[in-house]
């Protein structure tokens, strides 16, 4: 059974204080790892897809990295508008389910 664990559950940062969110996973064979951002009262918004160990993706202050066991979402010099819940999801190789397995998310609050 595919499993995804995100840590920490909650994170409070001061504006400009860089940090990282962790997503540890166990799958039969990774097809893709996805990061989403969810603002209160809204549906998740797609951020990144990572397919293989060593891959990195960047978008503004966010950088996602992937190893064979985990992914990190690095937030550099965060701003209050980066406050949201960040969700990680994995999907297994062909033959596995097309249904992604989501982690429970990390709630990030950035104080001005």
């Amino acid at each position: 059974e595919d499993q995804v664990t995100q840590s920490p559950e909650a994170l409070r940062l001061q504006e400009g204080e860089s940090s990282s969110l962790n997503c540890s996973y166990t799958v039969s064979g990774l097809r893709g790892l996805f990061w989403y951002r969810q603002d209160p009262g809204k549906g998740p918004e797609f951020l990144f897809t990572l397919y293989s160990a060593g891959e990195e993706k960047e978008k503004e202050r966010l950088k996602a990295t992937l190893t064979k066991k985990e992914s990190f979402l690095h937030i550099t010099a965060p701003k209050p508008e980066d406050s949201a819940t960040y969700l990680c999801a994995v999907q297994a190789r062909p033959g596995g389910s097309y249904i992604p397995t989501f982690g429970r998310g990390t709630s990030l609050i950035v104080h001005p």
Partner: protein
Amino acid sequence: GAGVSQSPSNKVTEKGKDVELRCDPISGHTALYWYRQRLGQGLEFLIYFQGNSAPDKSGLPSDRFSAERTGESVSTLTIQRTQQEDSAVYLCASSLGGVTYNEQFFGPGTRLTVL
């Protein structure tokens, strides 16, 4: 272009009533998913549609829950004889689907409150 839309945005109902939630996916997306998200919790998979294939209903919590999809368009999630534990946000997502997995695009959700 238009994203995934859901209606109603909010629904308040009495225990025991039936409710119907609607999802309009992005045009051309063959895959459609329904999730439930309780307050402060993660996404709970309910049902998955892919094209004209039989849906994967493995996440439906009870036989009070059902869903339909007309071709590759609108989907409705029906909850019969609602219970207070059904209170949650119901999210719909669509993706390109097919033989490769693609990122999901989510709607804004329907917030269901069962009194």
